[in-house]
């Protein structure tokens, strides 16, 4: 729901960095989004298109989103397990429900690529 404002902050961070690094055109922006984050990749793409279209720096740029699976560590048997889309937070090894989420909440701007002229 707040993807547009998230994307605005992505663009702001890239814009500042591009100025500092003397980059005139951005070709690609790469985000990492965990599957247990509330930001939807489709909405992020939509927001990126909407904002990049009106910014000279981002003309023709593409957005790449790497989705991270939800991984948990079982506190009982120490196994790392992947949580599927049914969100059953139960260890497939020992049946324990004492799981700690170790991946899947990510929401960060990994890198961008651009040209200096």
């Amino acid at each position, binding site marked *: 729901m707040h993807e547009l404002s998230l994307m605005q902050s992505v663009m702001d961070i*890239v814009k500042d960095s591009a100025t500092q*690094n003397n980059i005139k055109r951005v070709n690609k922006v790469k985000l990492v989004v965990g599957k247990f984050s509330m930001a939807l990749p489709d909405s992020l793409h939509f927001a990126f298109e909407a904002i990049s279209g009106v910014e000279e720096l981002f003309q023709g740029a593409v957005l790449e989103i790497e989705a991270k699976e939800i991984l948990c560590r079982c506190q009982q048997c120490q196994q790392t397990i992947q949580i599927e889309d049914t969100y059953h937070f139960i260890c497939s090894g020992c049946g324990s429900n004492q799981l700690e989420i170790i991946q899947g909440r990510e929401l960060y701007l990994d890198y*961008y690529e651009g040209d200096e002229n």
Partner: protein
Amino acid sequence: MVQVRLESNLLGANELLARKNRSAFSCQGLLVVNLMSSPGSGKTTILEKTIEYLDGNLKLGVIEGDLYTDQDAQRIEQKGVQVIQINTEGACHLDAGMVGKAFEELPGEKLDLLFIENVGNLVCPAEFDLGEDFKVVVISTTEGNDKPLKYPLIFREARVILLNKIDLLAYTNFSLERFRQDLAQINPSAPVFLVSGTTGEGIAEWNEWLLGEVRSKELNHR
């Protein structure tokens, strides 16, 4: 072609402010509860009943979050509790910055318990740490029992869950059994209280649990 690595956390600014809030709250031994639900599930009514129950025992404060209007703050003020209204003017959630500012403005003496009533929304508020001790999710029987599966993050993040409008259960197709089964998969450790803001059912049980949390926070503070 140049690649610039940033590894910049998009919620980093919020997380920094949430840590600041948390230490400000902890300094005072104050327990802070972030109350979340969809619109119309009865957060404000539950809060009114909770204030009535706890009145006299504890010094309470409330930060009200709404997109527009101060209607909820007015309702809470009538209960004789210090309240600050935040209007997000369109934003779908409260963030730690808004809460920190409101907390500074909150008048009166040292509090024991602060409620933050978030914007009615099961999606975005789950993502934003406000510096609270824990999150409470209110869901009502009229919304349907499928909500934990549809909004797993907020139910996973909750320390405690209040199922409101329990007096209307018989008039809905809400399956209590299915609801409990789904929660057992998503968040097995969260207690679930069956409550009614209208009849007052379950309000005492929920408040006694909450009082236990306030006491253990106080003990840790000493």
